[in-house]
């Protein structure tokens, strides 16, 4: 049995790590982008970001001061029984989020959408957001904490119901225009990870896009060769826009482009785009049935 205290502590530590340490795959990819850029402003955007991340890693601040939406993606595997039942995961996420906010690893950013009232601890209706799924191929609980910045979520989210007659041309046109729009003036803080969902219902389509942006190792191709080819083609197209880091003149407005698909209605071709910003914050906690847990920036 996994104790609630363990879950709470693992969630807090994963969120704190996510807020203060740049994930290793992201850092590596950003350094490659730095080497490739030639425009001095494009390089400086990255250089300063590296310095910012270094300070955060030393306990002098945060990977980014907009700690955004507090998200938890949880996979329950075999032997993952939780004290009090799985519904307690939501309570643990609330406690971990409130503690992270209290200790200023998260900024109090979540507000009521209409009254704009701020509870002060990022906890309330629907937040933190917990996404629970079940996976028999793993042992215990796997929790990914992802503070998702406003820039990428607010300016980098698009959905369009295309139709079968719109074809692949429609998908490509939509995606490249989304990237162009979202990267203008650095709105989504490029180099971004662009997650794309194709198929499903509207909500599933967007969920696929979000998970493609947040939960895949940056640049890892889809296991489906046809999808991987489409990823490659769209990534190559993004590099010809002439937009670089933070929307400056350059090459790397996108550092990774990931597509996930689902079956859809024979009449429909839904496409969703959800971006993740250059700091790509997320950290994983893996908890076993004996209440041991490990934290990792690898995904």
């Amino acid at each position, binding site marked *: 049995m996994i104790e609630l205290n363990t879950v709470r502590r693992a969630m807090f530590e994963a969120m704190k790590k996510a807020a203060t340490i740049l994930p290793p795959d992201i850092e590596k990819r950003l350094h490659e982008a730095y080497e490739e850029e030639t425009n*001095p*402003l494009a390089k*400086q*955007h*990255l*250089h*300063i*970001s590296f*310095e*910012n991340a270094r*300070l*955060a890693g030393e306990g*002098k*601040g*945060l*990977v*980014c*001061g*907009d700690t955004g939406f507090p998200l938890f993606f949880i996979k329950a595997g075999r032997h993952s029984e939780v004290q009090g039942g799985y519904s307690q995961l939501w309570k643990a996420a609330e406690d971990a989020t409130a503690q992270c906010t209290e*200790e*200023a690893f998260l*900024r*109090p*950013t979540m*507000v009521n959408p209409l009254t*704009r009232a*701020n509870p*002060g601890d990022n906890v309330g209706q629907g937040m933190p957001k917990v996404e629970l799924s079940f996976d028999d191929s793993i042992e215990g609980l796997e929790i990914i904490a992802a503070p998702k910045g*406003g*820039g990428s979520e*607010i*300016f980098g989210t698009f959905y369009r119901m*295309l*139709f079968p*007659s*719109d074809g692949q*041309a*429609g998908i*490509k*046109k939509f995606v*490249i225009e989304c990237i*162009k729009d979202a990267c*203008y*003036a*650095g*709105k989504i*803080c490029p180099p971004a990870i662009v997650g794309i969902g194709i198929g499903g219902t509207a909500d599933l389509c967007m969920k696929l896009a979000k998970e493609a942006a947040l939960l895949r190792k940056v640049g890892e191709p889809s296991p489906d060769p046809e999808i991987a080819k489409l990823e490659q*083609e*769209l990534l190559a*197209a993004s590099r*010809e*826009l*002439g*937009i670089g*880091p*933070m*929307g*400056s*003149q350059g090459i790397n407005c996108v550092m990774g482009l990931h597509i996930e698909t689902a079956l859809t209605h024979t009449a429909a071709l839904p496409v969703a785009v959800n971006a993740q910003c*250059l700091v790509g914050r997320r950290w994983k906690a893996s908890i076993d049935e004996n209440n041991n847990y490990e934290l990792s920036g690898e995904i």
Partner: protein
Amino acid sequence: MNTIKHLQLPLSEAEARSLKMGEMVTVSGKVFTGRSRFHIRAIEDDILPPIDFSKINTFFHVGPVMRKVDDGWELVSIEPTSSIRFERYGADVVRKLKLRVLIGKTTMGPATTEALREVGGVYLTKIGICGNQLGEQVKNIETVYFLDELGKTEATWVFEVEKLGPFFVGIDSHGNNYFEGLSQDVEGNMPKINAELGVPEDYDYTDVNSSVGK
């Protein structure tokens, strides 16, 4: 990299007008912060903090991360926020407060660019993710307004800063916007990109007679 101009606040009109798009700068002196709520309240409700805007005329678009400590506040990180979303009120706020300097992420639109041209002000764009370095350049937390009503993030903080930056002049006081110029270059690249992707020049999405969002 370009040399960096170190500016002392409050900036005079002549100093602001001498700045050119693309120049790298830092600012030293006093700045105040605000975000959406500041803009909406300033214009819709005429609610302003009791600041002498002739002396503190640098508006930093940001919601700092603040930690409560025994004798007051400690600044954790201060990442500029996306200014473009204030465009509905940006020009009115610039004119009303006669702002000389805006600091933020992204840019502003044509109306605010025009207001800056009239007033003699500039918009400074942040470079990279820089909130921890900027935090170190905040030398004193002078005061805070609207904390109870708006919370730490949307409150108006007044900071004394030293060589805050670097930033680049994204919009100068002569109507030039770095990103508008770049956008034209990007549009120029689109025909080739579409051709490579196999998107015909006259491509239209299937029209199902939807009127939403048009």
